[in-house]
């Protein structure tokens, strides 16, 4: 287990919704890194390191959270659909690995 990543207790009292993700940033990065490794194995050309980006939709999520951007909308929909099984598998593997490595956080 990585000692550097501490389990985060839910903050007491009210938390502004737009800051809900803040206590979980470190875990989100860990989850993102694990997911990126899986994606890099499944999809050629994917980088091996994830990026930290202030994604609007995730700021109110009070849990480790990542956003996965597959491609822009100009890609062929059939091509996108063909990616689905590998993508689902990569996400499942990453979440399983995260819960195994950081059991206290993988609620």
């Amino acid at each position, binding site marked *: 287990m990585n000692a550097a990543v501490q389990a985060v207790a839910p903050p007491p009292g009210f938390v502004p919704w737009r800051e809900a993700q803040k206590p979980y940033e470190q875990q*989100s990065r860990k989850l993102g890194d694990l997911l990126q490794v899986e994606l890099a194995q499944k999809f050629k050309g994917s980088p091996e390191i994830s990026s930290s980006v202030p994604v609007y939709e995730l*700021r109110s*999520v009070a849990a480790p959270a990542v956003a996965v951007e597959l491609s822009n909308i100009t890609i062929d929909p059939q091509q996108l659909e063909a990616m689905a099984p590998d993508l689902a598998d990569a996400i499942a593997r990453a979440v399983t690995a995260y819960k195994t490595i950081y059991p206290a956080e993988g609620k």
Partner: protein
Amino acid sequence: MQRHVKIAIAVLVVAVLAGLIYLRVLHQRVARLTQTQATEEQERREVVAPPISTPTDVVANAQLFWLSATQPDQLAPVTVQLALSADPVERAKQLIGALIANTPTTGQRTLPVGTTLLSFYILPDGTAIADFSDEFASEMPSGILSEWMAVNSIMQTLAANVPGITRLKILIHGQETETLAGHVDISGFFDVHVAPAPAVPVGAPAQPAKPGAPPG
């Protein structure tokens, strides 16, 4: 073969040939139209955002961050000779203007071509406020990567060329905006520091922008 079948085939062949010729003409027209639009855009830019020159301008090498020519999902610095002011505010305006107007190739563009920097301020604590025209949001291709590359190219360019800027606030037409084009949170402040361009956010962990009170 019957005569009317021969005639039908001949008509079809002529139609296909005519179609091919028309397609070629159409292609040339589209190419001409694209060129005209680019020229019009350049003319419009010269009226809306004329080049900034100050008495302290000195031609110097500036590092501007556009999309990499080889890896279009990453930023790469390009050294460009620019007349840069000694005044950090004017210098930043000149750099952002060049970032919009002097893109090496269309594929390397990070900021929409119609974007104009309306105003730029630097507060005493090192906070820079960049106010962009509506086109920055409305013409931005929606997506985490494209939006982040736009914000990051501004941050990296300022960090590399304007000392003293510690963080950046982006406004759209004088207003605070939640997102750039639906994904990247620009409601807070971005820390400005020289750092390598990030890898592609195929898996992008959440990191909300630091919320902060609007300046003033």
